[in-house]
């Protein structure tokens, strides 16, 4: 089924936050943010700004009636800085004016004096100074200390992965419209409407039931609007509440890039031990997560790094420790993969390093250690593995041997151009790792004309969630999909929503929708059973008609609905779904946190230009575990899109802060994301369809995040291509592998001599 937003998308009629028609008298907001990464505010001068044309009012921390606090997991982040600033871009004041231009012009007139304090940008330095967001955590399996004695080879090393700007093409924003009795409606570009509602309630000191958050769709989220959309909602609401006027703030791209957090950069140390059969016996890893200046979602991201530290390998002895390090950067946040990719990069680097030391192909080590069903993850869950199935299928279907031979032949025949090939298996756990967040609700109404309205807790952001929700309702009721409308996500219709994140939203909201539709259908069948004096088990509703004992009756869906209404039978249902069987005990760091895992294998081939360091990704050939895809068009799109984003993170997207904590890659001109020209020339995706039961909606496995990690394969393919040119190259495990870094790795000697 085609994406249900297709028609409005291609006509430019899809409504995003900045397209909502404005209420008369709407005012516009803009933030004055800190120019300094760390310091004590000495003075804030807003007088000149107040005199600017069109300025209505300027809000500071002193104007907050409730708690000046937006921290979700830990209360450590102010909405507007009161006494100290902790990162460049930290909001200090909110200017509200009669136009967007007037607000932005006035922001430039605000003057601030700050007594600087020491700035930390490096997570290892933060750890040394004991600047930690939460105490460190350690996941352990077996006993690594004892296991080292059983290892024939022990290899150690360090890695670094940089952050990543979300660059949702629709920037952050909110629009708050006051309602009667001091209630507020907030249109928000958020993945977490309830998070906006909760934060605003806290800031304004009003109950949550007075705050309606409504989201039609996002122009991209990728995790960046999971927690970090709340500030803008709360700010607009703060101004609207004081002024009794609608207030809108749609961030400029550069404001957005400067003020919001990104994917967490990590710095890591590893020690890996193997036996003579290339089995990994022991693995120790320490992660230093660059959390930025406040917790935001960092503790949860750090947790997922630990969950995925062994990727899709079984290692009997593991000790993984993670530190969430507090630095003076914007608080880093969720980004597709949520810490998982950072954990998986390190084990892949460890395997690459081991392979180089033992002079074998990393593919051999990868293959020998793939997870099997029944193996235990370091966190105690027992694997239901498809790792070998995906791997073997990829190797055979795409003829790995031939691909490798082609690469070798090319490299033998070309001096200044080299190819590299790498395999990247993935394993990603589905569910929020915080068990309580795994719940969702759906509200389904059947109207008397037979049409259906569905509201859920999920937010549509391009991932096709609403299409899948509609498919669920159409399938259960067995009616024409055109009779169903999926409505905006609204906290007045569906309350206490978990954010649309963790790849789990189709499962959670789809199942809630399924439960609601089944309940309504059951009542409708009772009506039909009475009418036809038949047993309810003999009643079926199929293709808009009522069937009794397999025979079509003259009752249509419409007639059935009308009959039920006349009999005063409820045509509405509000359903709740919480996946069973998941739990996690943080005191032991053991449990069964995931409803299931998603597996896959990608074979990536690249070509590098050994004179310039530039490169192309020739092909990525994937076998991906979809379970039983309920919408292959959408799922392929998710798979390709995640892959491209993962390749971007690993190759060209270079986020740069200077020592003073100022973002240098602060626009699209200085931060390169994959364009249509730089995506792989060939992407092939094979669906590994499995018949096994799982907890996914209609057995169609989650697909949002897992394929992002195929992008790690591009890094190691480039790594191997450099090795093909210069086998002695000592390539640091430092992602992204920009063309500049490729060039430096190709000619380390020249680099040394020039230093």
């Amino acid at each position, binding site marked *: 089924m085609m994406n249900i937003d297709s028609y409005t*998308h*291609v006509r430019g009629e899809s409504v995003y936050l900045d397209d909502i028609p404005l209420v008369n008298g709407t005012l516009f907001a803009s933030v004055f943010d800190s120019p300094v990464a760390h310091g004590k505010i000495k003075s804030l001068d807003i007088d000149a700004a107040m005199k600017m044309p069109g300025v209505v009012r300027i809000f500071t921390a002193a104007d907050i009636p409730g708690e000046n606090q937006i921290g979700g997991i830990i209360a450590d982040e102010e909405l507007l800085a009161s006494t100290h600033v902790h990162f460049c871009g930290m909001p200090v004041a909110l200017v509200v004016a009669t136009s967007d231009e007037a607000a932005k012009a006035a922001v430039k007139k605000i003057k601030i004096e700050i007594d600087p304090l020491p700035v930390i940008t490096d997570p290892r330095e933060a750890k040394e100074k004991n600047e930690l967001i939460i105490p460190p955590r350690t996941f352990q399996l077996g006993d690594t200390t004892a296991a080292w004695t059983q290892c024939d080879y022990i290899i150690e090393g360090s890695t670094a992965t940089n952050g990543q700007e979300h660059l949702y*093409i629709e920037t952050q924003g909110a629009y708050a419209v006051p309602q009667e009795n001091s209630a507020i409606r907030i249109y928000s570009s958020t993945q977490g409407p309830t998070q906006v509602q909760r934060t605003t309630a806290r800031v304004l000191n009003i109950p949550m039931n007075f705050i309606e958050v409504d989201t039609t769709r*996002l122009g991209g989220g990728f995790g960046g609007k999971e927690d970090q959309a709340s500030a803008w909602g709360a700010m607009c609401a703060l101004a609207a509440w004081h002024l009794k006027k609608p207030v809108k703030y749609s961030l400029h791209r550069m404001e957005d890039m400067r003020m919001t957090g990104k994917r967490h950069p990590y710095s890591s140390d590893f020690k890996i031990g193997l036996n003579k059969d290339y089995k990994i016996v022991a693995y120790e890893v320490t992660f230093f997560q660059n959390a930025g200046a406040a917790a935001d979602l960092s503790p949860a991201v750090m947790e997922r790094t630990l969950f995925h530290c062994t990727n899709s390998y079984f290692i009997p002895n593991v000790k993984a420790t993670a530190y969430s390090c507090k630095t003076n950067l914007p608080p880093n946040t969720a980004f597709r993969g949520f810490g998982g990719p950072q954990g998986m990069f390190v084990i892949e680097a460890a395997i690459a390093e081991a392979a180089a030391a033992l002079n074998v192909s990393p593919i051999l080590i990868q293959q020998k250690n793939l997870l099997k069903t029944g193996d235990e993850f370091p966190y105690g869950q027992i694997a239901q593995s498809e790792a070998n199935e995906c791997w073997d299928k990829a190797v055979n279907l795409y003829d790995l041997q031939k691909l490798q031979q082609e690469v070798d032949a090319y490299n033998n025949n070309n001096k200044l151009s080299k190819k590299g090939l790498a395999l990247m298996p993935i394993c990603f756990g589905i569910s929020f790792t915080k068990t309580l967040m795994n719940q969702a609700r759906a509200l389904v109404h059947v109207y008397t004309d037979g049409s259906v309205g569905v509201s859920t807790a999920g937010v549509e952001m391009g991932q096709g969630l609403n299409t899948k929700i509609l498919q669920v309702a159409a399938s259960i009721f067995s009616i024409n999909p055109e009779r169903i409308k999926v409505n905006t996500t609204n906290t007045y219709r569906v309350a206490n929503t978990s954010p649309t994140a963790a790849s789990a939203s189709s499962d959670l909201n789809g199942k809630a929708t399924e439960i609601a539709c089944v309940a309504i259908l059951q009542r409708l069948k009772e009506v039909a059973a009475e009418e036809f004096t038949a047993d309810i088990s003999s009643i079926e509703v199929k293709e808009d008609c009522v069937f009794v004992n397999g025979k079509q009756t003259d009752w249509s869906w419409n007639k059935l609905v009308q009959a039920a209404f006349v009999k005063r039978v409820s045509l509405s249902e509000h359903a709740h779904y919480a996946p069973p069987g998941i739990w996690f005990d943080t005191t032991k760091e053991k449990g069964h946190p995931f409803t299931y895992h998603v597996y896959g294998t990608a074979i990536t081939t690249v070509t590098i230009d050994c004179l310039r360091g530039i490169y192309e990704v020739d092909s990525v050939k994937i076998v991906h575990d979809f379970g039983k895809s309920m919408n292959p068009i959408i799922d392929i799109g998710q798979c390709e899109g995640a*892959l491209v*984003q993962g390749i971007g993170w690993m190759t060209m997207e270079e986020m740069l802060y200077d020592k003073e904590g100022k973002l240098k890659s602060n626009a699209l001109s200085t931060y390169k*994301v994959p*364009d249509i020209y*730089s995506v792989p020339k060939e992407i092939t995706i094979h669906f590994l369809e499995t018949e096994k039961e799982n907890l996914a909606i209609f057995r169609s496995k989650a697909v949002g995040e897992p394929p992002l990690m195929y992008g790690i394969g591009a890094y190691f393919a480039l790594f191997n291509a450099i090795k093909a040119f210069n086998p002695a190259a000592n390539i640091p495990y430092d992602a992204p592998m920009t063309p500049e870094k490729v060039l430096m790795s190709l000619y380390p000697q020249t680099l040394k001599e020039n230093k």
Partner: protein
Amino acid sequence: MDTTNKNEGRRDFLKKSTALAALTIASPALIKAGDNDEKIAAYFEKVPLELEINGQAYKLSVEPRVTLLDLLREQLGLTGTKKGCDHGQCGCCTVHVDGKRINSCLSLAVMSHGKKVTTIEGLAKGEELHPMQEAFMKHDGFQCGYCTPGQIMSAIGCIREGHANTAEDVREYMSGNICRCGAYPNIVDAIMEVKKGGKQL
């Protein structure tokens, strides 16, 4: 630099220079009101603009600094054209001026005086979609949809310019339109299909 003085300087300059011009071109009624410098400045800070947008003629009065993008979105309510970066780096705001694709965020509205502008809203004939719109639907050439209007306008321009003979060509000449969701393979397929269809766009 103190931006206050700079802005005031600009306004003062306008008042003085336009007062002179006013003597020659403004209506007598306005010269009478010319005692009030502010009114004259305001008058001359807006310029007349006549253009055609999606087949409809407009007679407008706009500030010279207003971009075509802001004119479309903020003043005419044509919100199908999107603002992604406002610096000509993402391609979201692509529209056609006299049939050629441009970034409307990098173009001042006044530059389109006397010209024909086509936005995403002007492509379909009622319910009947433009072939490129059809192709994007058929090939799922989007995910979140935010960059889609710009992609479609740019894609039509790409074919008109003769830059869509091969998939390689399409990649090169569509590289100014960013899709962060990464729907690129499908976008290439959609454009190639329209190109092969051979319809005059």
